């Protein structure tokens, strides 16, 4: 966090813009991939930008009260704050925003802030579908957070740090990814990522057919647009977090320097995150939908076992 505030501010804005663009493109790619898997042409890759523009261009909007009005704000703030505390690129002057000022446990709690604020807004609309979706979503959180925490605790005790930057330093120094150092923790984290993205088979929250898109059911126009933006940024945040934790992050300040280094780092980041993102997407294409208790039980069964194995591995690895 050295350097004058102007560079920092520029870095923050650049990070947010990068996350927004990449996230939106990933959403479009997901739709394209699903369409191709269904033997369709599918929408163009930039379709999400058009949707967002259209939603923000709606000339009338409705809201049901202050909490509903602020629900997208919660989501956006949670996403961007989490983004600012995650090192997008490793080291260097670029994108280090507040990396040294928050650790993993803080990130864990920050990442549920958005969904809780959203839940409050949904509750105020008075739409029963929204409330049902929220109850399902919160139940699902208790499902996928536990294996995630298990894997995080595993790598914390394995490397004696709770800081994301330290973990990246380790991986960059000894070219060993933590996915290789502690595969069980990586597996558990992958499972919980499946849950975090709320794609099929864990999309019971906003099931369009039975719940009328659940929590989203009362949001339209600029509110839905802001929710889309926040969701895209948040998807990128999750991907970058997993990449930094387990896949060695991106960027080599010692190897490349200056703009070239940043560019190559970004390319590496995009490749890694895209490959990671394709896991939940491709699973979502072929999987049917779980009921809520089935999903929660699933997370409490195998991912929990993998997480526990990861902890044991970490204890005996030391």
């Amino acid at each position, binding site marked *: 966090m050295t350097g004058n505030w102007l560079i920092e501010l520029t870095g923050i804005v650049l990070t947010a813009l990068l996350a927004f663009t990449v996230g939106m493109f990933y959403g479009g790619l997901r739709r394209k991939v699903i*369409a191709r898997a269904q033997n369709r042409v*599918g929408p163009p890759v930039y379709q999400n930008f058009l949707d967002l523009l259209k939603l923000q261009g709606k000339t009338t909007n*409705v809201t049901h009260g202050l909490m509903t009005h602020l629900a997208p704000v919660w989501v956006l703030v949670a996403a961007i704050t989490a983004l600012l505390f995650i090192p997008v690129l490793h080291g260097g002057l670029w994108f280090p925003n507040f990396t040294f000022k928050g650790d993993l446990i803080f990130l864990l709690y920050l990442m549920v802030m958005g969904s809780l604020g959203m839940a409050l807004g949904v509750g105020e609309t008075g739409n029963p579908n929204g409330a049902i979706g929220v109850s399902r979503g919160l139940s699902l959180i208790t499902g996928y957070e536990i294996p995630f925490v298990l894997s995080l605790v595993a790598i914390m005790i394995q490397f004696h740090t709770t800081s994301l930057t330290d973990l990246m330093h380790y991986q960059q120094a000894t070219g060993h990814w933590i996915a290789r150092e502690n595969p069980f923790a990586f597996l558990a984290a992958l499972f919980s990522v499946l849950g975090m993205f709320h794609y099929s088979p864990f999309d019971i929250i906003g099931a369009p057919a039975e719940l009328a898109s659940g929590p989203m059911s009362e949001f339209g*126009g600029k509110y839905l647009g802001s929710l889309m933006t926040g969701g895209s940024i948040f998807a990128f945040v999750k991907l970058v977090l997993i990449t930094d934790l387990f896949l060695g992050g991106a960027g080599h300040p010692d190897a490349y320097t200056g703009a070239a280094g940043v560019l190559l780092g970004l390319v590496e980041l995009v490749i890694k995150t895209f490959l990671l993102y394709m896991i939940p997407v491709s699973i979502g294409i072929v999987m049917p939908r779980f009921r809520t208790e089935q999903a929660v039980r699933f997370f409490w069964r195998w991912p929990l076992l993998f997480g526990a194995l990861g902890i044991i591995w970490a204890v005996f690895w030391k």
Partner: protein
Amino acid sequence: MSETKDIRIITRPTKEQIRQAQIDFAPRCTAAGRVNDKETQKMVQYILNFARKHSLFLLAYGTGCGAIEIPATLTSRYDAERLGIRGAATPRQADVLMITGYLSTKTLKRVIRVYEQMQDPKYVVAFGSCTINGGMYFDSYNTIKALDRYIPVDVYIAGCMPRPEAVLKGFAKLQELIQNGNAGNGECYRKNLDWYRANQQKVIKNWDFPDEYNW
């Protein structure tokens, strides 16, 4: 021989007669819909219209037999998503309200409610002969005969039933209208609310809508 003449008398009127009749039939929203013509519209408006026409969230109000054409249109065979058309779950998110077939007065009430809950700019695509002129229900005591007496309609898709190709053609027409700025009649609906309310209340006997028009 004279009867044959009578038959000719009963045959359809000419296109001019029909157009003339159309103008005094539902005159309101055809002209007032032109909020911004292609000549007058600004650059921002042009870009917005481009986004609007390429991202249509479709709320299919599946009444009657036409509902079965929607899955065929949206799924792999005739992939409507390549035009940016995707299903929306609730009227709050939707841009296009699609009425697929006849409307009984009981259903019409819900349709009007749903239409009023959609956000501007909002478009209505009426689907099948029944929405145009009652179709085979032309003398049914319980189905409306012409939809645009009750809510403004942007595009009619004729046929009983229109095949998915026809539906896509209709959507292409809607996109063209949007780009020209001739679509989206929510504003004019609000302007001529009394006329529409009068028509609706003439049909819907147990009228329990809220007094002010809330969207």
